[in-house]
């Protein structure tokens, strides 16, 4: 009986430690899906402000403020755990799973500065979004530009 219990215990231990690795379909699946979901949420919020700026949605100061606060919060999050080294598109098995370029993790990468610039742009938006549609329009150009500054260099087409 003792032998059986020991064997069962070992098997369970093995299974639980192996499970996280076995559950992934590709390396860093959780991190990649997490960060992609995160950007979908960012895109959704940007869309609301964009529609107001383009006149496709009625301007609503309270809603604009709430959305701008969302974007500022999202940008200010510490998501570093979702960006592990080796999760770029050139890594084994990831060419069609992510568009993150290896340059992100290179020594001369300035992604930190670009991220800070994005946070700053969301702060400006949060200060202005509730002050009228013209203030929103003035802030959205630089905000979009700060998104694209990073995409241009670090996101593949």
């Amino acid at each position: 009986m003792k032998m059986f219990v020991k064997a069962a215990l070992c098997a369970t231990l093995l299974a639980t430690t192996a499970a996280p690795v076995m559950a992934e379909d590709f390396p860093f699946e959780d991190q990649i899906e997490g960060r992609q979901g995160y950007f979908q949420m960012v895109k959704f919020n940007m869309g609301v402000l964009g529609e107001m700026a383009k006149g496709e949605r009625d301007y609503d100061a309270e809603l604009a403020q709430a959305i701008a606060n969302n974007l500022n919060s999202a940008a200010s999050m510490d998501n570093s755990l979702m960006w592990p080294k080796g999760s770029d598109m050139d890594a084994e098995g990831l060419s069609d799973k992510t568009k993150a370029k290896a340059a992100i993790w290179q020594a001369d990468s300035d992604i930190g500065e670009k991220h800070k610039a994005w946070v700053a742009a969301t702060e400006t938006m949060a200060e202005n979004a509730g002050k009228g549609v013209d203030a929103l329009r003035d802030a959205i150009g630089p905000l979009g530009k700060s998104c694209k500054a990073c995409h241009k260099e670090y996101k593949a087409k």
Partner: protein
Amino acid sequence: MTVKIWDLPTRIFHWVLVLLFVFLIYSGSWDDSLMKWHFYSGYLLSGLILFRILWGVVGTFYARFGSFVVSPIKGLSYLKSVYQKKPEHFYGHNPAGGIMVVMLIMFLMLQVASGLVTSDDVLWEGPFYASVSDELASLGAEIHHTVQIILQCLVGFHVLGVIAHSVLFKEKLVASMITGTKPDLGNAKARDKINSIALLLCFALSAGWVYYLFSLPI
């Protein structure tokens, strides 16, 4: 003595194209403030290209593709004759010019098509972005960003070529594209009169296409 070569629709097409192209390059920079006008200018340009293609079939003689489109081999041998300072004189587009026209039209069409299906991932989507697969939209983005460089190079060559030709062979090519006339060297064949029905048809189809594009949500 001058001879009528370029009809008015062709000349208007050419110079409006120049203005739109310059503005499109400028407004296409990733500073978003003019993006809406970039879209609208692109729509107009696509209408212009459509017009030129149709007019190249039913327009006046020198506007028709049949009168100036030749094989690239002929284009190259023409350039060789220019290099040897003994080129044949053409009242319409010379073979090299003809190749340039074809290349510009093809790349402009590619630029329009790619723009219509692509997105900048942030705030702007082409009107047909939602109707295509993600892969096609991504391909569109890559094409759109690459072809704009190719087009600028082609336009650069075009401008240099026109200037070089005008200076070397003392032909006022730019003036001719404005006035529509060239000096008659004695053997000139003037263009035919514009067929009003053909012109109306080309214009109506192009305008209809542009109108449709403007009706789509951005």
